[in-house]
């Protein structure tokens, strides 16, 4: 099963031909044998990848995190220099060393992390690098006119004078798209564009994408959400572990087949687990308010409880107060109002270490800057939440033997590959790093685990390991609060699901009976009554 690469342009280029005799219009993009090895992380991100996109199509590029999709697109956009391979754009062989050259070829990229200047206005951002000038000075009126022109051409309304930093994410994304269109991009690369959107906003984006295709633009759409692919793409290419697995017209395939191509076997859509046996409440949050900044609440009047032996999932689109909620519960951010209790005792004002000493564990959202200190050894990483315990600290000195045996326990129990206690931790891979975090957090027999996006950026094997670890902990009677933007994860793990929208719980669902559609409506701020 191999991609239908015809190698027309590149073949002719190699022959020195003018390339006028091929059938049909030239491919918008053709990439052949792209190989990229990252020595610093020892990752072969692209292994002889072939990829072809026809002009005017919406082409989905799917694969799991780390499959090499973004690397491939960065090669196309001139951000990453490939070790080997050839590229043709519109039938002409090209070398792209810099985004400038990509832009000149009519390629535009909307990155996952927007490349916007927050203090600049919409117009300033869209025209950045190609500002109209008048007598050598920037000209506001001309800028506004240009943006208005774009708006009407593509039917994408924006306010040219608004500050980008004040706009919601979906509008920032629109600014990014307009930015590429302003540069006459005929080939648009969208990197995981729906990751930051509600399902409804995603629908709106699909409308925009279809509109672009109708106007003759080519769209390459990177994602790992297969339902979206079926909905919006004409053709789909699947990558796995740096290799191109295949390309198919959307009409000839289905979600199940794509999933198998993506993962390499049938996916388990549900993790096998026994019904929960909930016990007494362990974590009780009452009318909690948390501020993002002085006077600006991110979480308002939120109440929830997690009992021993159950997993409560918090679903929601990223940026609806998840981080602030977790930080308040774990003690990293003060609560502006309300109370938090752990095992019946109020902990609202206790410092982090005291909460941890009382049995709270925390799997942080950002394992590289919060969960771990990459500048030091594995030993010093596993002891950070427990170094106050008398067994690890004696008369103000660290008890190194005990710390070492803790590290050994974590390595053994969580099968952290290629790790030794005294070694620098930076040598480990992403999945193994998360195992170290899990091992540390579970080593102290916690009563309550707060897990925030625990599988972000991990490969399938590691995801399963994390899921199984959390379920095992639940079965031992630990209370687990799982915060995740991945609906699949919430549906697979949680016993009860709470939906977070703009800092409030807007619905509670029994996980066994929850449907993805219902969750989607709630996540977007709708109610179930109006939906039914």
């Amino acid at each position, binding site marked *: 099963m191999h991609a239908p690469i015809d190698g027309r342009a590149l073949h002719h280029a190699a022959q020195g031909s003018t390339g006028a005799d091929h059938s049909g219009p030239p491919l918008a993009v053709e990439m052949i044998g792209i190989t990229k090895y990252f020595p*610093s992380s020892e990752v072969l991100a692209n292994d002889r990848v072939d990829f072809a996109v026809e002009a005017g199509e919406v082409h989905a590029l799917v694969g799991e995190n780390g499959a090499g999709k973004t690397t491939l697109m960065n090669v196309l956009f001139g951000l990453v220099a490939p070790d080997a391979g050839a590229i043709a754009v519109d039938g002409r062989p090209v070398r792209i060393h810099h985004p400038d050259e990509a*832009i000149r070829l009519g390629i535009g990229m909307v990155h996952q992390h927007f490349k916007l200047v927050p203090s600049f206005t919409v117009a300033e951002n869209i025209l950045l690098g190609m500002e109209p000038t008048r007598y050598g*000075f920037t000209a506001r009126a001309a800028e506004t006119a240009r943006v208005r022109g774009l708006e009407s051409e593509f039917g994408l309304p924006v306010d040219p004078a608004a500050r980008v930093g004040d706009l919601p994410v979906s509008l920032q994304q629109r600014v990014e798209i307009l930015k590429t269109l302003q540069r006459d991009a005929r080939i648009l690369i969208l990197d995981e564009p729906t990751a930051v959107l509600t399902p409804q906003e995603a629908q709106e984006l699909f409308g925009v994408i279809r509109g672009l295709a109708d106007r003759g633009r080519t769209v390459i759409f990177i994602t790992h959400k297969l339902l979206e692919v079926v909905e919006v793409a004409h053709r789909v290419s699947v990558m796995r572990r740096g290799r191109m697995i295949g390309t198919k017209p959307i009409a000839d395939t289905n979600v199940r087949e794509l999933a198998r191509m993506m993962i390499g076997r049938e996916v388990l859509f549900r993790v096998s687990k026994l019904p929960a046996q909930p016990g007494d409440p362990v974590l009780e949050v009452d009318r909690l308010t948390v501020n993002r*900044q002085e006077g600006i609440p991110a979480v308002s009047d939120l109440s929830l409880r997690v009992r021993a032996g159950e997993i409560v999932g918090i679903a929601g689109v990223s940026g609806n107060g998840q981080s602030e909620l977790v930080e308040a519960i774990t003690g990293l951010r003060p609560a502006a109002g309300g109370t938090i209790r752990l095992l019946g005792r109020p902990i609202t004002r206790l410092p982090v270490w005291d909460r941890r000493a009382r049995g709270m564990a925390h799997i942080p959202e950002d394992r590289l800057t919060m969960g771990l200190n990459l500048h030091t050894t594995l030993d010093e990483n596993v002891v950070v939440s427990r170094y106050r315990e008398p067994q690890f600290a004696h008369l103000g000195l660290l008890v190194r033997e005990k710390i070492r045996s803790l590290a050994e326990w974590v390595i053994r129990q969580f099968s952290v590959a290629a790790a030794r206690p005294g070694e620098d931790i*930076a040598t480990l891979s992403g999945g193994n790093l998360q195992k170290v975090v899990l091992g540390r957090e579970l080593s102290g027999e916690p009563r309550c685990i707060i897990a925030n996006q625990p599988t972000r950026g991990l490969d399938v094997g590691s995801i399963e390991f994390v899921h199984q670890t959390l379920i095992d902990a639940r079965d031992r009677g630990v209370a687990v609060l799982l915060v995740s933007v991945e609906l699949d994860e919430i549906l697979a793990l949680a016993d009860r699901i709470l939906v977070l929208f703009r800092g409030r719980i807007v619905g509670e669902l029994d996980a066994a009976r929850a449907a993805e559609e219902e969750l989607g409506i709630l996540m977007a701020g709708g109610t179930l009554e109006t939906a039914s």
Partner: protein
Amino acid sequence: MIGDILTVAVLRSGIRLATPIALAAIGGALCFRAGVLNFALEGMMLVGAFTAIVAAFWTGSTYLGVLAAVAAGGLIGAIFAFFYLRYRVDLIIMALAINLFIAEMTVYFLRTFFGAFGSWSDPSIRQLPDIAIPGLDRLPILGTLLSSHNIIVYASWIAGVAAYIVLFRTKFGRHIRAVGENQSAAETVGISVPAVKLFVLVTSGCLAALGGAFLSVGHLTLFTRDMSNGRGWLGVTAALFGLNHPVFVLFAGLFFGIADAIAVRLQTVTTIPPSLVQFLPNIAAIVALVLVGLSGRLRWGTLRLRTRPPQPMAEQVDAKGP
């Protein structure tokens, strides 16, 4: 008492003394706007002071001396940019090294070429002449304050306004700010980040060195070891105090200049020892920093300089290593 101290003469002298600080501060503000920490302003100013007087002596023209100083400062900025952009040298460590190098080597050259120890001058060197502004010089008080300064004083005012126009009214200035605020946003639209950083470092070198030239051939006609005497650092402080806005920065420089002038004045009208009086600009700087810190709490967070102490290089090298 206050009337004795805050006289028109003191204000005028404050405007003059503000010149080197303001010039360094405008350069610093440009760098900070582009996201480059320039802590080498002190050395750049010192190199300007030294070059100006030596070149004035050799060429016989004070103006050529000033030009040479500006070129020397720009050269230091270019060297700084080269190591930073090509070898990713830590900006602060390099600034410390450059400041030390210039402080030591100016004295080295002074001794090698002129056999002078603490300070050096030559009767052939003429001070930069004061230039009266026609019309303005006939106004009472305002004329005394603002007219009949030398060219570097006027240049500092022009530099402030010009830097404002460049930063906020031109395409290139917008690119500078974009680089400082979100470098990858600038990169992806084809703005040359190295060119922007080279520009701000060279320009700040030129400006700080011009301030140095003011010290050695504008204010006095001599060079002493370590002549900049912390004014480059006051420039860094003034840039922060002026919120990295060139026009505000001019006034922040004026604030320190007047503090300095008051210190000088206090020495003549009181018996307070000079070393105590010189506390004044330093205390003023601390007050300014505290004010910036307080305002930083009120959501001007972008003004905070983020610096990280040096790490052992074995760890740095291996942070991404195999």
